[in-house]
């Protein structure tokens, strides 16, 4: 024992641990850069947007990109760059609110169902069957149809559907963890089920959940902008990428920048989430698994 310790400390140069090394990969760095940039833009849009996103300027209608308006202007003379930047705060909000509550509910339900099993598990299995029988978007817009269009209702609709997927994943992970010795040990020690689930099982099941969350946030942006484009999500004049693309749709041959710039913003942000998600999956993966 002591011999090994001395051996290690006397090594002249310590190599970086593989997990840290994974974080230095170009893919992760790029993703991290994109993501943190997106968050900063989302939190402080006013600091970066050169103009008021909703200010009409009838002297500058559909101007091509220039030094004054780097992304050009729209059919009402609004500065596209400013609108794209303000849309960051809306779309990043969508990424968070359309996923976070679904995740929290899903994790709680999934853990309880996995731990207690029995009748609750049977019911849950049925809920999963039903949920996957509907195309996701159909179910979401059906709920939006009942509640009415708008961002808040969209969050409710997505959460109503999406928690099932988080719960299914959590259930599967917890079930795997429960076969481990430390779970049985916890039970032998007489810990409460809450303590075993949330202090012991869940932390070990978090990796796939976090990875799934990253992907899901990216998907939420796609979904939010799709609904915005269809007129069921954010409502104009609120700047949201899908809404912006819908506004630019009729001018795509004359004022291409109106729809191109928000489109690029979606692709880049989504890429950022994917890159970070993939790298996190590698980094957080338990040791020994390849």
């Amino acid at each position, binding site marked *: 024992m002591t011999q090994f310790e001395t051996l290690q400390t006397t090594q002249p140069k310590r190599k970086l641990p593989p997990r840290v090394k994974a974080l230095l990969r170009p893919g992760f760095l790029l993703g991290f850069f994109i993501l943190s940039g997106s968050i900063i833009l989302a939190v402080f849009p006013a600091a970066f947007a050169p103009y008021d996103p909703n200010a009409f300027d009838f002297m500058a209608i559909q101007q091509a990109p220039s030094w004054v308006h780097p992304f050009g202007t729209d059919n009402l003379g609004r500065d596209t760059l400013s609108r794209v930047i303000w849309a960051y705060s809306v779309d990043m909000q969508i990424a968070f609110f359309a996923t976070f509550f679904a995740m929290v509910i899903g994790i709680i339900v999934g853990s309880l169902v996995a731990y207690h099993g029995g009748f609750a598990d049977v019911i849950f299995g049925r809920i999963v*069957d039903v949920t996957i029988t*509907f195309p996701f978007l159909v179910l979401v817009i059906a709920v939006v*149809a009942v509640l009415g269009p708008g961002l808040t209702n969209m969050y409710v609709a997505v959460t109503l559907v999406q928690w099932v997927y988080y719960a299914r994943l959590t259930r599967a992970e917890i079930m795997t963890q429960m076969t481990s010795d430390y779970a049985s040990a916890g039970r032998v020690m007489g810990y409460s089920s809450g303590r075993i689930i949330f202090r012991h099982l869940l932390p070990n099941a978090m990796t796939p959940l976090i990875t799934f969350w990253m992907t899901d946030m990216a998907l939420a942006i796609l979904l939010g*902008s799709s609904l915005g484009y*269809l007129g069921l999500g954010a409502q104009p004049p609120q700047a949201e990428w899908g809404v912006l693309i819908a506004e630019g749709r009729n001018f795509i041959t004359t004022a291409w920048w109106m729809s191109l710039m928000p489109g690029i913003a979606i692709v880049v942000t*989504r890429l950022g989430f994917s890159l970070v998600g993939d790298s996190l999956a590698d980094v957080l993966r338990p040791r020994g698994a390849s």
Partner: protein
Amino acid sequence: MSSLSYLVSRLLQIIPTFLLVMVVIFLLVRMLPGDPAIAMADAKATEAQLELIRQKLGLNEPLVMQFLYFVRNTLTGDMGTSILLKAPVSEVILERIPVTAFLTVYAVCLSVLIAGPLAFVAALNKNGSLDIAIRSGFQVGLSTPVFYIGLLLLTFLAAGLRLFPVGGYGATFLQHLHHLMLPALTVALYTSAIIMRNLRSAVIEVLDAEYVQFARSKGLSRSVILGRHVLRNALISTVTLLGLSIGNLMSGTLVTETVFAVPGLGRLMLEAIFARDYPLIQGLTLTFAVMVSLVFLLTDMVQAWLDPRLRLS
């Protein structure tokens, strides 16, 4: 164990799921504030007409009875009258099903045609520059919203170069192919990214399998090994994935139909939602669920056809 009895047992398994599906759809409309009869009827409906709807839906009776009425009406094909189109919901839907079915199958075929060869090329050049190029390309495809891909294709290939008609469905099979080319491609570009990822890793895994090494030791040609031994085994997981992502695929067709003005179920759904045409929304939601279930069934059968281990157990 014949395939027929397998089919029957699979169909029987669907029934409880479907009852729950109907509960969800039933509750969806009951969630509406106010009188469901008013929601289900034209705004100009008279009190007598409303009373008729109330009776048909059993609104004066307990909720359980209402649900049974709903099941009965649905099973007899009576899903009410569309407010928007002033025609029976079942008729309207039946008319549109072929369009969406055609588009979906078309999109699946295209995505397999795109993803299949590229997945093989990527897998055989694992971590090579070609592999990285293909994967990055698909990563961008995966990051682009469906409606945006559609918009770009529509602008440049249909409106700009006039290679394809803008919207519509056409009358003959060839016209369908021509009209739906861009919508199908739009959906396929997204779906093929998912398939490519999965098929690539499946091929890589199968290439290392002992039975492929054994097949190589038999002196089989590369094309036989790839086509007979690798492809079939790799396809199993891809078929599963394709079946499971049919919901996503249909979500994609919904958006795409709207972008390209294709007269299918998806566009109808959106029109119904904006018109608050609840009978139609109800009918369409159910139709989508039926279609997805049928695809799940089909997936199971294809898997059983591909994998003898599933056939006999």
